């Protein structure tokens, strides 16, 4: 819940209220302007002045409509990004869970492995789990042995490898485009 990926979608989310606020101010301006123009128009006296007012009114309305449309697009993009992230998270979690079971990690080791994969240092993990650093180090050694690797770095690589394999298998970099971003093509 605290990693960098979320903030990317949040950044997208955060621009939206600003655009909406502008649209709202524009809508209010448009209503006042149109009410004023309507009085002028009912008073008769067609001329350049009224033509200008009508044009400005139309421009204001177009601004509101375009702003609204833009808002919807931004909202939907942000939403889709978030969903893609959820799906990716789900996939990673699934792969990790199945590996951990395969390796027969104990509950404590599973937790330590998760923290290690999230990038926590040994003292941090000890702090989070309220155990001695020595305990964590021993658990990490057990995890590496069960996974058949020799370092934390190699452990992470195992998962990255899996994910990249899965991706190319499913043709995500080929025909099936990634859900959003499309940086592959």
């Amino acid at each position, binding site marked *: 819940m605290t990693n960098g990926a979320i903030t990317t979608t949040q950044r997208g989310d955060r621009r*939206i*209220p600003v655009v909406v606020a502008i649209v*709202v101010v524009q809508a209010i301006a448009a209503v006042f302007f149109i*009410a004023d123009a309507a*009085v002028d128009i009912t008073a008769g006296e067609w001329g350049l002045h009224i033509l200008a007012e009508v044009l400005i009114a139309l421009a204001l309305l177009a601004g509101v409509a375009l702003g*609204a449309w833009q808002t919807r697009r931004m*909202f939907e993009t942000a939403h889709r990004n978030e969903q893609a992230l*959820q799906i990716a998270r789900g996939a990673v979690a699934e792969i990790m869970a199945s590996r951990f079971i395969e390796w027969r990690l104990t509950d404590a080791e599973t937790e330590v492995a998760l923290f290690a994969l999230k990038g926590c240092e040994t003292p941090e993990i000890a702090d989070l789990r309220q155990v001695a650093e020595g305990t964590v180090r021993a658990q990490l050694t057990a995890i590496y042995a069960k996974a058949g690797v020799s370092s934390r770095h190699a452990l992470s690589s195992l998962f990255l490898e899996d994910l990249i394999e899965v991706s190319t298998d499913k043709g995500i970099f080929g025909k099936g485009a990634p859900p959003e971003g499309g940086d592959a093509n």
Partner: protein
Amino acid sequence: MTVHTPTRRWDPLVKITHWGVAAVVVVNALIVGEGSIAHIYAGYTLAALLALRILWGFIGTYSARFSSFKPSPSRALGHIADIRAGRHEVHKSHNPLGALMAYALWACLAVIIASGIGMAGAPPAVDASISASEFISGEYGEGSEGSEREESQAEELFEEVHEIAVNLLYVLIALHIAGVAFETARSGKRTITAMLPGGK
């Protein structure tokens, strides 16, 4: 690794128009004089917020579109049966009772705005000669021409309609807040937080 249930969420435009309307209604009721210039401005501001929300009902995001919460008395009755039976259905937008309330509130606001504009006409110009207190509480358009000015029949009708609709709006708002409180107690605080800034 959190569990994700499908969630309805309100986009910023729904939130800003909602709290904008609520703020204008409350501020107008509490501190703005009935016949003042500020009152007329409040009405036009409401008109803009309501018009924008209605536009958004056609072109907006999924949860905000009218097609996601069609008014339906039969589904409202079904929803009451759900409440009785303690069933919790997931709704993609307002629940069927909430939908009826939203349309009722909007219709009521529309009548108030239309009758108000019928009485007051275009927004009066404001210049530096008008003090803030005059703006907020001074009577606009009366006094100098003799306060016992003849009111046209149309004007009387607008006034009558305006008054009735405003009272109805206050009743609806009370029911609305009671409904939100009830739904919050029944289904959890996400009902309210979904409408708050930053809430999902």
